[in-house]
């Protein structure tokens, strides 16, 4: 009396759409998915940037978003950013949780009136067809206490799975965003798992090749997950981290005083990551935690003010 036929996995359904598949007939590989999204956003007038070379917790922290969201100049950019979240590490043993994952970050300033339509079109380019799926914008307001930033928006659900964060920035570094920007953050592993129909991130087809040339996500990152989880949870020297934090803080303030917003912001990012590491080591009590967040936020606010005080970035 219970239904028997389990519907086919998403990968199989997508197989009907040959244009989204590489020549081997498999679903979009992890890297193709990134390339396709970048191509899409390049066509929308975004500059395609590379990841920022400092550890950050989210793509928002990249100066191309955090700083460029401020001030009046129009700006469109897209880039992949590794997101480091030390507390989410599971030694590579949890199929859905890792201490480092990839985000594709898009910033559109000012926010175009058709932001949602553009986003839906970007999903269509990677084979998520609105005719087959249930795509929903579910309330989720974004806030970054360390960045002194907030915005209103949604998490985007595809068939019950959150695949993106969609935010209209209202404030960054305690400063009102004028004009308001659209920020899109795609969780790339999740999206790829969905498109490929795999249950574990480590099974993701990374390069779309077959036979000995085939590379999985696990082959690329599993060792890093094990080693960084051990470092984050067990070995990071908390005494030294506290010192590093204070050093970064001092350096940041000194650079702000000289009006060097970008080098100062690097130090702010370092302080933020050191705080995350201390948090993962359980070295911070609840009350201390608030104090640390406020210290990072003070740095972020100062950097943002220095950024705005400096010469226009588009000159």
């Amino acid at each position, binding site marked *: 009396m219970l239904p028997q036929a389990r519907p086919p996995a*998403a990968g199989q359904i997508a197989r009907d759409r040959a244009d989204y598949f590489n020549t081997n007939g498999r679903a979009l590989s992890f890297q193709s998915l990134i390339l396709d999204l970048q191509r899409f956003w390049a066509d929308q007038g975004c500059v395609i940037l590379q990841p920022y070379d400092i550890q950050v917790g989210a793509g928002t922290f990249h100066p191309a978003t955090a700083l460029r969201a401020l001030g009046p100049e129009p700006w469109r950019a897209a880039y992949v950013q590794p997101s480091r979240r030390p507390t989410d590490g599971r030694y590579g043993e949890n199929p859905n949780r890792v201490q480092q994952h990839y985000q594709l970050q898009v910033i559109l300033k000012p926010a175009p009136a058709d932001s949602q339509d553009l986003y839906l079109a970007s999903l269509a380019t990677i084979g998520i067809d609105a005719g087959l799926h249930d795509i929903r914008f579910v309330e989720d307001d974004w806030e970054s206490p360390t960045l002194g930033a907030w915005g209103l928006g949604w998490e985007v659900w595809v*068939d019950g799975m959150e695949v993106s964060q969609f935010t209209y920035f209202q404030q960054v570094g305690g400063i009102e965003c004028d004009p308001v920007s659209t920020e899109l953050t795609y969780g790339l592993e999740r999206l790829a798992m969905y498109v490929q129909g795999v249950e574990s991130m480590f099974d993701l087809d990374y390069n779309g090749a077959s036979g000995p040339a085939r590379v999985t996500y696990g082959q690329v990152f599993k060792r890093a997950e094990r080693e960084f989880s051990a470092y984050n949870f067990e070995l990071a020297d908390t005494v030294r981290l506290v010192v590093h934090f204070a050093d970064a803080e001092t350096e940041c303030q000194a650079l702000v005083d000289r009006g060097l917003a970008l080098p100062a912001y690097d130090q702010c990012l370092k302080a933020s990551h050191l705080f995350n590491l201390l948090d993962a080591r359980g070295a911070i009590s609840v009350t201390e935690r608030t104090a640390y967040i406020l210290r990072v936020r003070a740095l972020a606010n100062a950097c943002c003010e220095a950024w705005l005080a400096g010469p226009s970035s588009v000159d």
Partner: protein
Amino acid sequence: MSELLLELLSEEIPARMQPRAIEGLTGLLHDKLAAAQIPAESIRGYVTPRRLTVVAEGILAAQPDRTEERRGPRVGAPQPAIDGFLRSAGLAAVTECEIRPTDRGEFYFAVVNRPGRPAREVLPELIHGAMAELPWPKSMRYPASDLRWVRPLTSILFMLDGEVLPLPLDRVPVGRTTRGHRLLAPGEICVSNAADYLKRLRKAHVVLDQGCRTEMICKGLEAAVSAEGLSLKPDPALLAEVTGLVEFPVVLMGTIDADFMALPPEVLSTAMRAHQKYFSCLWPDGTPAPRFLFVANNVAVDRGRTIIAGNERVLRARLADARFFWDHDRRVPLKSRVEALKDRVFHAKLGSVYDKTERIAALSELLAGDVHGADPHLSRRATRLAKADLSTGMVGEFPELQGIMGRYYALHDGEDERVANAIADHYKPQGPYDFCPRAPESIVAALADKIDSLAAFFAIGEAPTGSRDPFALRRAAQGIIRLILENGLRVSLRAIFACAADALGPKYPDATGELLAFIADRLKVHLRGEGFGIVGGAKLTLLRHDLIAAVFALDEDDLVRLLARAAELAGFLATEEGTNLLVAYRRASNIVAIEERRDHRRYDHDVQRKLLREPEEFALAANLDLASDGAMRALAREEFDAAMGHLATLRRPVDEFFDRVTVNTEEPKLRENRLRLLSAIRATMNRVADFSQIEG
């Protein structure tokens, strides 16, 4: 009579905000139309995730005409004054004015007929005003307009009898077009009037009426479960929420892998409900069935197969996580997790959660003595373990399962079932309608947890003020009241709070007095909310505030006795004896109060027998002794009614005393003694209830 059609199309409005938004908007329009003298005969509001729509019918086409009269300058006034008046009144020549005599001479009068403005002229500013005033819990700026809104406005449909009206909203288009369902009919739709709008939206897969959407969802859910021989676990809050997430609801059913069905039902339903907004299904015997229902916002070309598969995958990942925690958590016994609570701050000024469990364990010993049938050892065990599940992976992932997981893990560890249940119950009741524990050890744990929270936060000066109650202490107090009253517990709150203060230690100030006053205050609120209290299973009829106050004033800290007394007081006052008692009390106490105020002193001392003169004085003093003695003995037996009966016998001697004896006599000693006698009556009666609090 005109028809107004207004649709505010926006990006997705959070589901929780939709009902208030449409209520607010229709309310504002109603009021503003009335104030502008163009009231509507009917106003209907509709809300979906993307639109707020108002259809107002029977609007007056124009405001009624008004005649305005203005007095101008005196006849013969200087020409500039007359010219100025004409200009301001909008008249061309002085001949258009009337000349009227007044008691100060003849004056020019301008009589101007002001035709009412047509509705079409009034409406734009009126609608703009309503939009600006509509309160959103959170609103945002966006590039297209200066008007803050919950999410960016896409376009506005604004028509009066089919004619588009302007609305100054910067770059948000205003006109006769809208859009259908985001995925199913994304194109522009041009409408000519309200009926046309409703018809076209229906075709464009938008079920505009929120009630209709709820009904569609209900029918879909029912059809899906009955086809499988299952039933739906009712969930009105979830139903309301998903109604606000879809414009065209399509109910779909998914399957839960059999391997996950061994998880506790609460884990299943929490993972499904809180994170995924899925409905749970039940077998006919009420146990969870391996099916879930959800509401999609799309009619997919493959009849939803892809959507179902996707949702099943997401749920599988969530439940795999939950099962990992379930297996992992059970490897460590609950009792060895107690240590970890030392790292969990309860409040910066109140130590760790571990410290809190130590305090409630200490309290549980005293409380176990007060709760009939409670085993002190098991009660202590339960309170020690009550918070241990906070450090489990499952509660970390699903905080709403705190206590519930503690119960499962305790049972797994082989703890006594009473201990396990008390762990689950100790957070309860969470509000006026939540389950109130009845098992003895559960009552002890639930009381201890709440008593400690109240005592601790009051001790550090964190009592609730106004609308600020960050630690939910009012709810905790109500929990205490319900636990005591619904279980008929005979406890001295004073003793319990003293014990809680002991457990906190000497470095905190004792706040027992404040706490008792707080409980008294919450008791009044609780009784007002309920309309009755439940004492030992018996319902009391509505208790008057003043009666509670009259009994509470006696330092009564046993809530059961307090309510029993208040109820008896209510009954007694309704009888003739009750009237007698009140009259006697008031006659005696009024004059004492007046004289005490005048003399700036009190007359509390004992009556001196040798200063009694009149027979009525002797009689009253003797009757008072008798009545007092009888009343006190009755009180000791908790025979409150009888105690009041004794006091009521004083009516006659009090009346006779006032008829024959002059209180304010010339002889000061006699006067003082008579006041002392009356004061003694007041004092005796106040030991039974503070009758001065009684109104009416």
